């Protein structure tokens, strides 16, 4: 292997923030478990499993998005919005 200069340790919290630094430090199995919990919370909050409408996507079709929304709704909706 090629001799390399000493690489510096990266301060991941500084580079990407605490949340992502913690996520990077997990194993794949730990991430899967954590993601599953987020999934349950998302569903309990009434989140939709529809894709986010994304007009950049080659699969995007407004017609299909309306026709196949499973519950006739597109996802989490803001029912009350606080001031900025």
């Amino acid at each position, binding site marked *: *292997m*090629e001799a*390399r*200069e*000493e*690489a*510096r*340790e*990266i301060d*991941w919290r500084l*580079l*990407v923030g605490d949340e*992502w*630094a913690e*996520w*990077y*430090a*997990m194993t*794949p*199995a730990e*991430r*899967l*478990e*954590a*993601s599953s919990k*987020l*999934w349950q919370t*998302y569903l309990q909050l009434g*989140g*939709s*499993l*529809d*894709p*986010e409408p*994304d007009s*950049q*996507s*080659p*699969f995007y*079709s407004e*017609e*299909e998005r309306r026709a*196949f929304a*499973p519950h006739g709704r597109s996802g989490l909706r803001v029912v009350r919005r606080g001031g900025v």
Partner: protein
Amino acid sequence: MRSLLMGDQGCVLYGAAEFSRDTDVVVLSDDDNLDRLGSAVGELRADVIAVPPFEKRHLEAGHSVHFRCHAAGVEGMRLDVMARIRGLPGFDPLWERRSTIETDDGPIDVLALPDLVTAKKTQLDKDWPMIARLLEADYAACGPQADSVRLAFWLQELRTPSLLIEVARSGAHAAQAESAARPLLTHALAGDANALATALRVEEDREREADRKYWDPLRAELEELRCARRG
């Protein structure tokens, strides 16, 4: 059934995403495997929710077939299936170099990280920060010491300027060699973060345009299929 997890759920396992609302897989598109896929989607009580229909010819043309599941426990979950991905070879080489993640529910076969990075080079805004995170997470997991293969991978794919400068600095010989294929590494070697960021954006724009061109004829086919379905 031979399939490999990809998409945002693949990114969850590799550390680049926290959550995904659907499951994307790439499958071997031979008749036997598609029969098994048909049985699997039957067990999931999944129906096709958009064009194209679930047919071998559409998968082999590069389309994605979109299912929604209705079986108990997976109600509403979406499954997107592809057999060909821009920039990647056919299924067999992808299968040979796959990653397998052990979980409490059994092993999960996932696209290898370099293949997932290639698959994420799309025209979509959302995919590019995810590529950066895939590389950051890999660097974080491996630490600064890496073998020459991984070092070359980082030099070719990292999208975070400060990390790319660090990797080029600590592996200058490799960076010089890799700069033939990725000229922006000269900015990383010079430690010029601004020029590097600009060059990364140009590189991204080039890939996004290539993806748009790849999808142009497929988009046209999808529109024809929608017209035919409307009658």
